[in-house]
């Protein structure tokens, strides 16, 4: 009996082993020949919208297969380039990541000449970085719980968010996840005018951060977490991506966003160094920047389009929910790439220095 069972188990084991190992060890063909493109983004709703509204139409129009992968992890890009094993072509990622990657020479400079001139002109100059071009706009905004503060009685400035007497309850701010500390916002809370924050008075900003620290109930790790915390009332107000609050509000969550004094920044298309499909990749970016297509994507997931012409394809009601709508964008300011991204004498950028300081500031308690 025992032996029989053992034989049976061995058989099952071997069978399972064969079935599982069988298709694993295929040699990967060189992709460039296969006419396919790998696009890498951070996932979520927006990713689904991209697949459906940009990836699929592009494949249909050109016959080139578009594959999506996640996430555009900096370290993986570096590993790929250094190991000469580049399997990603296009990244959709934020400016801090672009700065890190560009500094280590892991991106191809973007050939704006290869893009449609009319498209390029419709994209604000601030969104045209040598290595990256803006696609969707996100912003760090005041996001609050609507049960704790009904609309109209909610915190409307960063100074309000810093003021736990006037607006009692926990706060939530970001830590990690590649995001720089919110020094501009700390300065604005301390009374600096929105258009006068750059160049940053770093010491004053950190002093302001010191005042924020005791009222933060949770330093969040992912944006999903921030919205959940605010919706559940675990924090009553925080600094996170306003577009997520709009989506959550539409889905019935007790959260809303105030655009006032928001920090606006793009997620960008960029090309991985030594990608085998540079030409096709640029063509795809061109396709994705099309105003009508961007409008469609923004209707699905409420991030601002980078192309100004996209608003021609949106109703006023649809536009009102987007951070780049004319009424909203004028209340906000743009993240300054030059201040954060220019390497100093030691080869480190402000982003490197402040991110390091952020960790130390946090751990010291």
């Amino acid at each position, binding site marked *: 009996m025992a032996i029989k069972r053992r034989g049976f188990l061995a058989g099952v084991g071997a069978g399972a082993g064969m079935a599982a190992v069988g298709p694993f060890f295929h040699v990967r063909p060189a992709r460039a020949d296969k006419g396919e493109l790998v696009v890498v983004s951070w996932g979520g709703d927006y990713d689904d919208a991209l697949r459906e509204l940009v990836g699929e139409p592009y494949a249909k129009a050109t016959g080139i297969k578009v594959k999506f992968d996640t996430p555009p*992890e*900096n*370290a993986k890009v*570096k590993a790929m380039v250094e190991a000469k094993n580049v399997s990603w072509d296009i990244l959709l990622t934020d400016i*801090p990541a672009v700065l*890190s*990657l560009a500094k*280590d020479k892991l991106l191809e400079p973007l050939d704006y000449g290869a893009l449609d001139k009319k498209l390029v002109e419709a994209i604000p100059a601030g969104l045209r970085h040598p290595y990256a071009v803006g696609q969707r706009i996100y912003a760090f905004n005041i996001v609050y719980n609507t049960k704790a503060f009904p609309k109209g009685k909610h915190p409307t400035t960063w100074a309000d968010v810093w003021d736990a007497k006037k607006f009692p309850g*926990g706060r939530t701010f970001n830590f*990690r*996840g*590649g995001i720089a500390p919110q020094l501009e916002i700390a300065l604005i809370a301390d009374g600096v005018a929105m258009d006068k924050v750059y160049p940053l008075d770093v010491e004053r900003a950190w002093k302001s951060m010191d005042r924020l*620290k005791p009222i933060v*109930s*949770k*330093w969040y*790790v*992912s944006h*999903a*977490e921030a919205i*959940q*915390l605010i919706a*559940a*009332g*675990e924090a009553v107000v925080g600094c996170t991506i306003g577009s997520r609050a709009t989506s959550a509000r539409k889905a019935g969550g007790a959260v809303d966003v105030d655009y006032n004094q928001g920090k606006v920044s793009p997620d960008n298309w960029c090309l991985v160094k030594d990608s085998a499909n540079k030409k096709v990749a640029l063509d795809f970016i061109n396709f994705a920047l099309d105003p009508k297509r961007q409008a469609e994507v923004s209707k699905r997931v409420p991030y601002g389009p980078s192309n100004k012409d996209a608003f021609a394809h949106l109703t006023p009601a649809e536009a009102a929910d987007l951070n780049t709508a004319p009424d909203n964008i004028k209340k906000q300011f743009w993240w300054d790439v030059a201040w954060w991204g220019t390497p100093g004498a030691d080869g480190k950028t402000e982003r*490197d220095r402040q*991110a*390091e300081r952020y*960790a*130390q500031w*946090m*751990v*010291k*308690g």
Partner: protein
Amino acid sequence: MRYWRSREALLVLPALAVYALLYLYPLSRLGVWSVFDPEPTLKNYRQLIADPVYAKALLNTLEVSFWVTVCALGLGYPLAYLMTTVSARARVWLMALIMVPFWTSILVRSFAWVVILGTNGIVNKTLIVLGLIEAPVRLLYNLIGVEIGMVHVLLPFMIFPLYGVMTQIDPALLRAGRSLGAPPWRAFVHIFLPLSLPGVAAGCVLVFLMAVGFYITPALLGGPQQITLATLIEMQVSDMLNWGFGATLSVLLVGAVATLFVIFTAALGLDRLTGTGKA
């Protein structure tokens, strides 16, 4: 006799070969990065010593892991013991219940913890209704939160080694003890407990080592005081692309744990405790 035993030692070789290829070789590359940039340099190690933050993070890590191990042992030992005394059917259900936490992704689980432990959560509301507390107690985003979250994940890693060892304890020994007039608790303390120590050692080692490497749970459920070294390593490697320094911090972490191990083995005679000393 000796010959036979050294033959068995050969059984380590397949694992060693795999480790050499998949572990030692890749990691030695990283170790090299910690001292080359690209010229030989000790700047990474200087940075490590110059900034007390890393020592603080290491202490955080060890503190969190220590308490996780203690709590897991306290909760796990009775449960493992219970499993050895119940019917086969009850044991199956106990095992299934112990494994239940595994099947849930960690971010989703952290949502559940907010529902249960948050300031408006089930526990706080219940305690207030019962009149035990007046204002909500903070159970999340501090050491308590991290402990709860990590013990929840790691408890099975304590229970199963314990159970595995306890099932091998001959019940006849306990019966013999009792028939010689020892009351049940004495038989337990003097016979069962010492015999179960290899399981305790294995469970504690497993839980402690796994806890040291954790970084997602401390980040999700802890506060600034629970930032672990693994979190900082992840930041250096993934956000800052500073692999040399990330590797240096890893050397510190592995070195510290190995040192602790050696000290404990020497001080407590862990070798004898776990029976490795048996000739």
